[in-house]
């Protein structure tokens, strides 16, 4: 029900533009032609009246001549009446009357049903002034045109003849003209409206409907939608603009999808690397535990080997012990090689891209934990010599740690700059690795509980964790340290108990980086 209602309203709205246009144009057309027709009809009516009057004048004059001729011959009034009777056959003639100079009716003929005229002021006026007079009067069956024509009466006096003619015929003619005008106007109007409807459907409604359909498709997610409107007008422009917008949307969407895929890939890589690193740490531990006893076995065998001559029958037992020791060593080597992160390939890289990517990966986690992750890195930092994948793991470990130890509502900040951000008061620190070249320092600062000096000394050892059981593996920092060292950089951890911890990673600058920050940084390092 509701859907149907909305559809009806929608239809009305969709047709609104056309309807309004039609009503407006039709009204304008009607106003213009109406004024024109009105003046034309008024003029036509005047002409018709004038023509009837002229007809009547000629008829009256002719009649007056005939009457005068007959009077001069001494015809009686009866004869005159007969004469008039013959003339009444004229269509539209209501009455014909002959008046003598005294204004008395001499002879008359009256159409059936009409009123017999009597001499009045009009007749007397004509008789005294000897001028033809005409007027219009209302009769019982429509308007009547009267015409009084004086003529010469014998003995130098003037008589008059009156002709009364109905205007019914003229008025019928006029009404017919009005009717035909209205009909023709209606036909023109209908044709006009029809042509506008067709025109608007063709040039506005149809392309707009195509636009609406395309916009709906785009809204549903079909971003490949385009409109073909090969026109140069506003509609064509709108379509072109729409196509451009859809194009931009498609590009932006593709970029978003690409970024999401890239992030997923990166996360998987980091997870894989962490897994491998964990196995690697375990392997290293095993290697260390096995190393000493294995060394004792092979060492003792070597000592014996020197004491037992080569040709001794039991010498082969020693050879087997030695070769099997080598075999164990080989197995552990292979395991370590497999799990050890490959050597980084260092190249000039912008640090912002590396840290930024890690921050974007951890943004969700930080929001879930209610910790604000604040990236305060200026634009235009110099390039560093780095392997982005390895260095990403460094910042991933550091920021993860920082997020884990910071309480809800706290802030984890990432900054750049030569000096530590933590105040020196009550601060202890530890540095691993040693950078000999000018470096760029990135700081990861948390608002955790901080570490005591004693804890700080062990944080870079494998399997040392301050997070408690089941939370951290204790592998993050040793791996981080190893990667930073492989970058020929250094990592410094500063902490104030109950205040927080700051980790500073210093990575050597790329030689060719000309940014002013680089020289500042280099100068700072020189002191």
């Amino acid at each position: 029900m509701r859907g149907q209602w909305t559809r009806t309203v929608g239809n009305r709205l969709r047709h609104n533009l056309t309807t309004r246009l039609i009503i407006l144009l039709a009204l304008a057309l009607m106003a213009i032609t109406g004024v024109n027709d009105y003046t034309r009809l008024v003029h036509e009516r005047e002409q018709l009246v004038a023509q009837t009057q002229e007809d009547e004048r000629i008829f009256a004059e002719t009649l007056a001549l005939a009457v005068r001729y007959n009077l001069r011959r001494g015809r009686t009034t009866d004869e005159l009446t007969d004469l008039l009777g013959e003339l009444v056959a004229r269509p539209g003639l209501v009455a014909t009357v002959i008046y003598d100079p005294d204004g008395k009716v001499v002879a008359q003929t009256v159409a059936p049903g009409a009123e017999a005229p009597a001499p009045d002021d009009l007749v007397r006026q004509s008789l005294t002034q000897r001028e033809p007079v005409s007027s219009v009067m209302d009769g019982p069956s429509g308007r009547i045109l009267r015409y009084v024509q004086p003529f010469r009466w014998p003995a130098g006096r003037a008589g008059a003849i009156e002709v009364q003619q109905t205007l019914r015929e003229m008025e019928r003619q006029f009404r017919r003209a009005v009717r035909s005008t209205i009909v023709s106007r209606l036909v023109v109007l209908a044709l006009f409206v029809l042509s506008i409807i067709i025109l608007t459907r063709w040039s506005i409604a149809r392309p707009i409907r195509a636009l609406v359909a395309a916009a709906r498709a785009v809204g549903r997610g079909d971003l490949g939608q385009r409109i073909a409107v090969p026109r140069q007008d506003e509609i064509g422009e709108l379509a072109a603009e729409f196509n451009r917008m859809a194009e931009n949307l498609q590009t932006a969407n593709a970029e978003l999808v690409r970024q999401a895929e890239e992030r997923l890939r990166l996360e998987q890589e980091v997870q894989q690397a962490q897994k491998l690193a964990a196995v690697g740490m375990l392997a290293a531990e095993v290697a260390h535990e096995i190393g000493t006893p294995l060394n004792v076995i092979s060492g003792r065998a070597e000592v014996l080997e020197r004491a037992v001559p080569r040709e001794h029958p039991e010498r082969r037992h020693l050879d087997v012990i030695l070769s099997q020791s080598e075999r164990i060593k080989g197995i552990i080597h292979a395991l370590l090689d497999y799990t050890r992160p490959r050597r980084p390939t260092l190249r000039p890289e912008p640090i912002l891209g590396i840290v930024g990517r890690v921050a974007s990966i951890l943004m969700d986690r930080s929001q879930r934990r209610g910790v604000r992750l604040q990236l305060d890195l200026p634009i235009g930092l110099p390039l560093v010599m780095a392997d982005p994948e390895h260095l990403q793991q460094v910042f991933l470990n550091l920021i993860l740690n920082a997020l884990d130890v910071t309480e809800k509502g706290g802030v984890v900040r990432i900054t750049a700059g030569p000096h530590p951000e933590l105040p020196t008061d009550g601060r202890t620190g530890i540095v691993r690795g040693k950078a000999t070249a000018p470096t760029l320092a990135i700081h990861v600062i948390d608002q955790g509980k901080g570490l005591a000096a004693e804890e700080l000394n062990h944080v870079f050892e494998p399997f040392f964790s301050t997070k408690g059981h089941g939370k951290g593996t204790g592998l993050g920092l040793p791996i981080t340290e190893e990667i930073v060292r492989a970058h020929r950089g250094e990592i410094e951890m500063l902490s104030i108990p109950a205040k927080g911890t700051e980790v500073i990673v210093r990575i050597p600058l790329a030689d060719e980086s000309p940014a002013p920050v680089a020289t500042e940084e280099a100068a700072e390092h020189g002191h």
Partner: protein
Amino acid sequence: MAKQQSILVVDDDPEMRALLLDVLRNEGYDVVEVKDGTEAVLALRARRFDLILMDKNMPGPSGLDLLPGFRRVCPDSQVVLMTAFGDVPSYMEAVEKGAAEYLFKPFRMEELKAAISKALHSDVQSRP
């Protein structure tokens, strides 16, 4: 005959110590063994050694922890560190802190002898 060159072996594993003692004595060195850092410090207080052969991983202070102090107290004693193989970061740190040589366990006795003679050789050269 020249004075015997002296070596202090620092390792927490008794079997490893016994092996090193046997091999090095057989090579003609004057060898003293201790089981950890504390004993090593005591031994170094009592006399000087030409070389300290020390395990990196030990209970208490590790070989890497002890190294800087040893370099300070007895700068003319060369230090050879031993650790599990694959421990590259410790190697880099050890070199930084002034270890003369580094051995990855398990090593061959030939490697041990070569490393020790090399360390002692550089020691001779470094003296004025």
